[in-house]
C-alpha cells in the first residue's frame, strides 16, 4: 500500500539553528515527490517537485533531497517567517488512479526569534 510518513510531527528551532525534516515513502514506482508549505488557515503553497533519487532542489533557505526511500527538507539558518507546516506528497506510477497524491500529515515548524 502506498504510504507517506513525515517526521517529526512538530519541531521548534531557534532562529539560525539549521535542521531537517523527513518524508519517508512507500509507493509503486515513484513519479514525483512534492513539498508544500502551509500557513495556518491557508491553502498549501507549492515548494518543490523531485523526480529521481539523487535529485536536489533549493529555494532560499530550503533544500530538498531525494533517495529511493525518503526525502529531506533541509532548512539552513531559519528565520521566524519560515514557521509553517511542511507537507510532503508522492505520486506513483500504478495503473488506474495514478493522478492521486498520497499525502503525509506534515511537520509543524516553529522558529523562535
Amino acid at each position: 500500500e502506498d504510504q507517506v510518513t513525515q517526521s517529526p510531527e512538530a519541531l521548534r528551532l531557534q532562529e539560525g539553528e539549521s535542521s531537517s525534516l523527513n518524508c519517508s515513502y512507500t509507493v509503486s514506482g515513484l513519479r514525483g515527490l512534492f513539498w508544500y508549505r502551509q500557513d495556518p488557515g491557508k491553502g498549501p503553497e507549492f515548494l518543490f517537485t523531485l523526480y529521481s533519487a539523487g535529485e536536489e532542489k533549493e529555494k532560499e533557505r530550503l533544500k530538498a533531497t531525494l533517495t529511493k526511500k525518503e526525502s529531506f527538507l533541509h532548512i539552513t539558518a531559519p528565520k521566524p517567517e519560515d514557521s509553517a507546516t511542511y507537507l510532503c506528497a508522492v505520486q506513483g506510477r500504478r495503473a488506474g488512479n495514478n493522478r492521486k497524491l498520497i499525502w503525509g500529515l506534515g511537520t509543524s515548524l516553529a522558529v523562535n526569534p
Partner: protein
Amino acid sequence: DVKVTQSSRYLVKRTGEKVFLECVQDMDHENMFWYRQDPGLGLRLIYFSYDVKMKEKGDIPEGYSVSREKKERFSLILESASTNQTSMYLCASSLWDQGTGETQYFGPGTRLLVL
C-alpha cells in the same frame, strides 16, 4: 503565476442545508481536485476531474457531489450538510504530463462550519 480562487473563505450553514463551494482557476489546467483537511487526518481527496463534465471519486466521496461545466470551474456540492462535514475545504488544479506527473496548485481554502 497560477491562481486558484475559492468563492468563500468562511461559511456557516445549518444541518440539512444544500451547500455550494465554487473553485475557479485561471491557468487552463485540465485537472481539478477537491480535498478536505482535518487535524490529525491530513488532506483527503473527495473528488477530482480531468476534463469538462468528467469526474472521478476520491477517497471520501460520500455525502458530496461535484460539477464541472466549464474547464476553469469546479464546484463541490454538499446535498444535505451534516455536522461531520465541518472542515477546511481545499480546491487544487494541475496540468498532467506523462513523463513528469503533475504539480497541484491550491486555492486559499474555505472553512465550513455546519451547525
